[in-house]
């Protein structure tokens, strides 16, 4: 219960949750975050293999930093910075506020139950999704999708450029 309260207080709302980020701005920010981070990784490890996990970590971090106006990015940042510490478990997803169970009303209405299931699944996909209510989550999903698309484009170009 306390955890929920804490999460509520930490809950940050997007300033303009549905303003789609201008692609150029986002991509530029993204690459400018990711590239030096990757280089630093390379420098640190010298010639040894760069761990895939850490690269993924950097990728996610860059995503979160490039889209700071959205709520999901802050959740992502939280998750990432807490996962830097191996001792602290990232249990934010398990203690989140769930979608209200409407099974009491439904009775024979299976369809709505399905929809609830799907919404819950969607919540799991979105970082921090389980700590938002449904409407917020749906709007955040829109921007998340957009940023993911831009991210894949950026990553593709980066990979292509080096091969």
């Amino acid at each position, binding site marked *: 219960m306390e955890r929920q309260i804490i999460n*509520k207080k930490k*809950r940050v*709302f*997007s*300033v*303009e*949750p*549905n303003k789609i980020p201008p692609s*150029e701005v986002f991509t*530029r920010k993204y*690459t*400018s*975050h990711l*590239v*030096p*981070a*990757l*280089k*630093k990784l*390379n*420098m640190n490890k010298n*010639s040894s293999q*760069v*761990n*895939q996990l850490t*690269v*993924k970590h950097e*990728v996610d*971090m860059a995503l979160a*930093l490039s889209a*700071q106006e959205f709520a999901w990015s802050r959740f992502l*940042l939280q998750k990432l*910075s807490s996962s830097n510490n191996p001792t602290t478990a990232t249990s934010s997803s398990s203690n989140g506020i769930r979608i209200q169970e409407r099974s009491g009303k439904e009775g024979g209405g299976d*369809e709505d139950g*399905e*929809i609830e299931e*799907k*919404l819950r*699944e*969607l919540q799991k*996909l979105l970082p921090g999704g389980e700590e938002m*209510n449904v*409407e*917020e989550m*749906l*709007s955040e*999903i*829109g921007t*998340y*999708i957009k940023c*993911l*698309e831009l*991210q*894949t484009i950026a*990553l593709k*170009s*980066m*990979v292509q*450029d*080096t091969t």
Partner: protein
Amino acid sequence: MMMNGGEATEAELFLNCDDMSVLERQRVQLNYHQYHHPGFEPTLPCFFPNSSKMNVGEVDSFLPSAGLDLPEIYGELHGDARISVSPGNITTEFGNSKKRKFGCVDTETKVCNEKKKMMMMMDREVAVEEEEEEKSKVTEQCTRSIMKMKNKAKKEQNSCSNDSSKVTKDSQRTDYIHVRARRGQATDSHSIAERARREKISGRMKFLQDLVPGCEKITGKAGMLDEIINYVQSLQRQVEFLSMKLATVSPRLDFNIDDIFSKEVVSAPMMNLPNTVMPPHMMVNSGYPHDMVNSGYVHFNPMQQVVTSSDPLSCFNNGQSATMWDSEVQNLYTV
């Protein structure tokens, strides 16, 4: 605010023909909107521009000083009865349009609506019902009879004239607005809230439908949700795959990418000038530990030539970039 009021007046006068059907009226309103606000998305059920939500506590602290000048941020009425509507609805054009569509009867009703908005700031629970009643009317394309609308409007007008005088007085007093239920629907405040919430959700779904490719033909929430889930999962998988690929090639990344993507690179002097490379505001805003990013640049600054590319993205499309890299790399290795 004044300007919006003026526009509202025009709209009302223009649309004040009883002969027009509800749908015609709405169509006219939409056209009017499109003419006057060209960049504006006229989808009725879409509440997005104003969909930030606030905690109850935060609302309280903002209300006294807010007046009617709050920006679009605090726009929308939450389906939950706890949270009050904000003046964002009044000042934004879209908010106006919503009210207009509903109260498209006469200007008095319009003024009443706005005053009601002010009241609503103080009086939450009842106001929620009212607003949601309006909204649900709008989003369901006013399928109810015109008579019902007129009755509702009249009732509002009456309650308005009673209440408007009270608005300026005690802001804390709660006034009740009678809500007339639509035909065949429950009057329960919960179900009204429920209904509004559902409509909001379906509005969002429509928005997402535009975003996710290949969803135009799918109707129904479940199918749409499936598509969205699949799409998000596939995007996430793609990112993972690409980052794996990146991990394997990243030793070769080295200096090439940095040349491409850095806007300005400081030349030979070996001094630490990390701040000039990255636009300072980005550094400040990022929660990233500063030393980590800085050191990344410090390593490479001395070794790079001055490269000014106004738009790093242009390198994506630039076929010549390959040759540029090679020369750069050679230069770097010779340093």
